[in-house]
């Protein structure tokens, strides 16, 4: 929050920021022993990841927590980042509010430059021991190391015991501190934090050595760096009055038009003039002469002029594909039954800051059915561990009526129950946190609304899946009847009466009356084998189109059982299945080469050109083929008559149990 940071900066004059910190460590996340240890790891890891990404290096972070005595722990965080030049070390690790981030508008983990120096300071306050820092930049042959002693009054650190050492690392930084803390396991623990980091940073490789021994490694699930984020000028929408006045005062621009044009993003000279006209401010007025009224008029005018949405390439969402992949990667052996295709919303703006919301839902399988759903909150690729209740993310989740989407929820409010994990990631050039400890996203209406929309969109995908699964399992029973039991009844009865086996087609179509689609993917000998079987259990012959989204380059041409009628961009493939006679099966199959096993493990399958109600096992093609996902299909299928005819009573499902009689 900018206001608190300003506040902090002001106080710097009267008392040192360090002293301020000492009295306010709760704001910074050091209020309990347990939390202090987690915060120390968190701030250091955030710092390491930012450093690596700034330098375009795939992060490799090592974390070790060792118990020294009672409440004293030794924490080492080591990265393969670019390293820090020697004379900057005291500034980076020993001064609060130091760093390039404070005024920048770019998506970063650390935003205020409080983070890692707070760790060093906390360590010194609680154990009296200085932090040991070692760093190596790739230009140097050796690493330099030192111990930092902080003067909390002057907000300065003194570097002592400076030395050069050989380090078998090309470049990187290592921070070692001794601090008072308490190591715990469970939902709020270093392990869970690092797991969260791994989920939202699929490009990072993390190693953790906990105090009780063993080594946990979170392997990276992608080798691709997230695209580098840029620093951007503020977007005019949502710019605050005071901010505008301050900017006008210090700008180098001579005229209002060029001021607006150069200091803000998305304001061309034409738009600048339009805004100024609306605000009734002369185009060539000196910015420094801007009055309060004029500034107010400009703030109003901005909303009446069409201005392009802020640039969003300054944001680095994780992306739908990677969210799913890294969730799978991190859940590991805990098998879930469904990964709802994640949602990455279009970037939006609050107070001139672009932001983007991403949501992923994992459902079913071995996830715990009896508890509230697990919420994974992230802001700028940092897991949020504390203050869940105060977070806009949680509030948005509580505000959605999850009963509509297949989860239990008392009264349609609050955190839902069921076997699910909900992941929410908010990325922005400036995340509005509720406090400096950066644990909860503030309830900004624009952000909250975006989160809700993303949740609902993702939840719809879950619901579609659940509907499909339910319908399929209902019909699956019938599938077994017609597939196995009816043929055997026909056979046996024919044998007993001594006649040829009767044709069962009529019976089968009466029981099913649908086209049953069964698809599967198998992986063997470095090849994916895809099979889509279409059973026509209707009384008529059927023609239909089958659509799939495939990495089409991988498809082995000669393995295709039917040539596609059309292959479009984005791997959208269409087949025209011309005729399946009643009670016949058609199998569409092919192999794909050159893909990793996990790269393709579920078919995205649609049908068209057929009454959707008479197909089970595949979705109807979305009205717009470019739509990647279907809306909920709520039509009821023309199911074969379920109930008893003419008031018939089902002999085998009578509720009455005959007990205790021979």
């Amino acid at each position, binding site marked *: 929050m900018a206001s608190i940071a300003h506040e902090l900066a002001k106080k710097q004059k009267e008392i040192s920021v360090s002293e301020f910190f000492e009295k306010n460590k709760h704001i910074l996340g050091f209020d309990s022993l347990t939390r202090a240890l987690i915060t120390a790891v968190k701030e250091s890891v955030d710092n390491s990841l930012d450093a690596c990404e700034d330098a375009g290096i795939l992060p490799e972070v090592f974390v070790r927590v060792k118990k020294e005595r009672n409440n004293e722990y030794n924490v080492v965080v080591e990265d393969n980042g670019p390293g820090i030049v020697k004379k900057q070390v005291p500034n980076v690790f020993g001064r609060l509010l130091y760093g390039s981030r404070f005024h920048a508008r770019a998506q970063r983990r650390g935003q205020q430059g409080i983070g890692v120096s707070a760790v060093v300071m906390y360590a010194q306050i609680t154990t009296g021991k200085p932090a040991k820092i070692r760093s190596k930049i790739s230009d140097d042959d050796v690493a330099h190391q030192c111990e930092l002693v902080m003067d909390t009054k002057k907000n300065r650190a003194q570097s002592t015991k400076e030395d050069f050492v050989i380090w078998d690392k090309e470049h990187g930084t290592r921070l070692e501190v001794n601090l008072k803390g308490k190591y715990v396991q469970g939902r709020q623990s270093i392990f869970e934090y690092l797991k969260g980091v791994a989920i939202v940073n699929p490009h990072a490789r993390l190693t953790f050595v906990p105090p009780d021994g063993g080594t946990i490694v979170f392997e990276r699930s992608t080798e691709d760096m997230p695209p580098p984020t840029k620093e951007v000028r503020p977007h005019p929408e949502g710019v605050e009055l005071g901010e505008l006045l301050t900017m006008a005062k210090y700008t180098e621009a001579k005229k209002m038009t060029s001021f607006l044009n150069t200091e803000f993003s998305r304001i061309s000279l034409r738009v600048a003039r339009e805004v100024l006209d609306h605000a009734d401010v002369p185009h060539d007025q000196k910015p420094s002469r801007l009055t309060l009224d004029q500034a107010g008029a400009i703030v109003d005018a901005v909303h009446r002029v069409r201005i392009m949405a802020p640039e969003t390439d300054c944001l680095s969402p994780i992306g739908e594909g990677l969210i799913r992949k890294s969730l799978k990667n991190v859940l590991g052996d805990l098998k879930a039954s469904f990964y709802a295709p994640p949602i990455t919303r279009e970037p939006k703006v609050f107070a001139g800051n672009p932001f983007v919301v991403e949501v992923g839902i994992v459902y079913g399988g071995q996830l715990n059915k009896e508890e509230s759903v697990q919420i994974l909150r992230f802001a700028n690729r940092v897991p949020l561990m504390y203050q869940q209740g105060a977070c806009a993310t949680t509030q948005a989740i509580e505000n959605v009526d999850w009963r509509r989407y297949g989860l239990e929820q008392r009264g349609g409010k609050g955190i839902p129950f069921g076997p699910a994990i909900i992941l929410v990631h908010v990325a922005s050039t400036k995340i509005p946190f509720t406090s400096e400890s950066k644990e909860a996203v503030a309830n900004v209406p624009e952000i909250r609304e975006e989160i809700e929309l993303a949740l609902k969109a993702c939840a719809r995908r879950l619901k579609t899946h659940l509907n499909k699964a339910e319908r399929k399992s209902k019909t699956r029973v*019938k599938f077994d009847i017609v597939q196995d039991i009816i043929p055997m009844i026909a056979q046996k009865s024919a044998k007993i009466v001594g006649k040829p086996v009767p044709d069962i087609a009529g019976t089968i179509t009466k029981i099913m009356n649908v086209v049953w689609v069964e698809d599967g993917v198998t992986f063997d000998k470095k090849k994916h084998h895809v099979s889509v079987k279409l059973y026509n259990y209707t009384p008529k012959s059927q023609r239909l189109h089958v659509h799939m989204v495939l990495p089409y380059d991988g498809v082995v041409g000669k393995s295709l059982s039917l040539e596609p009628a059309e292959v479009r961009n984005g791997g959208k493939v269409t087949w025209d299945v011309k005729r399946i006679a009643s009670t016949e099966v058609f199998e569409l199959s092919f192999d794909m080469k050159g893909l990793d096993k996990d790269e393709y493990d579920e078919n995205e399958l649609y049908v068209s050109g057929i009454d959707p109600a008479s197909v089970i096992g595949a979705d109807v093609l979305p009205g717009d083929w470019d739509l990647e996902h279907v809306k909920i299909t709520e039509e009821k299928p023309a199911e074969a008559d379920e109930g008893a005819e003419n008031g018939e009573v089902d*002999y085998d*499902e009578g509720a*009455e149990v005959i007990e205790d009689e021979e």
Partner: protein
Amino acid sequence: MKSKGRHLRAVDRLTELAEDIYRQIDERKIPKMSIPLRTKSNIRFDRRSGVWKYGRSMGVRSAKKLTGAQMLLRTMYMLEFMEEMIRNNKSSTLREMYYISEGWEKAKFSAQDESNMLAEDLEIITACMREDFKLRPEEDGARVIGNITIQETDRKGKKKRINCRDDVGDSGYGIPYNVEKDKISFVDCDADMMVAIETGGMFDRLVENRFDEEYHAVLVHLKGQPARSTRRFIKRANEEMKLPVCVFVDGDPWSFRIHASLAYGAIKTAHLSEYLATPSAEYIGITASDILNYDLPTDKLSDRDVQALNAEKSDPRFSDQFWKHEIDLMLDINKKAEQQALAKYGLDFVTDTYLPEKLTELGIMK
């Protein structure tokens, strides 16, 4: 073999059943089968025979549902198996048939109750008896002690005369599973009544106290819910030897049901009531009134007991004044008692006091 005819008739009836299913498939229909509902709401009192039989409500077993389809398939397998047994002159126990079904793949039974029930379904549909299908129950060990003489044709075809008091050990004469005329005939009887007893403990108490001799009684051990052969044996003795029958069981809802199945006909086998039930059988006790009158040691009714009693209130077999009163009273005092609770007053109390009092009250003993 005398019974050849009934087996051939059974084959015809079973084949007709298969033909019906075959025809429905051939006519492109969803195969189904109608069976009288075996529920308490579908039993009717038959005035002529004085027992309860199935009414006209029919249930349908259709291949549209998984259970129905499965049962139809099992029926086909069972038909085939029975016809084979009849052809090869073999027979099997119900339990053996259950194990045979292990090889029936999708038609395999998951519990013996299921295969027993289906065999009964087939009895009802074909109006045959399971013996006609070459199926028999396991021996259940029900026994008889008393001055009644029967002639049994043993497994070697030899006819043996057995007096159920003099020619047997202390455990009595064991009732075989087949008690039809080709197996057993009643020769002579010197007794005033037949007492059917639920528990082995009470049966042995009466034997030890020589109740059979002192009171001219034939004692039959029911062993809980009596098997068909036990019920049939009692009915034949009642009809052929003119022996009044009375039922002496525990005082709980389950024992009421034992009496009902013996005297009125069981819901599960109402198609055979005319053949198995002894409508003149009297209920001696233990009644709820006995619990009060004799101040018997009791147990509290369990939830299941209460449920069973409430179910009996809507069971047409228990709709007379006597049962209504006893059931309500038992619910009211919320207590049940075992037969052997009578031992509170000594080992001889049951034979010296309780039974004579109750039998006199019922007019069986003068």
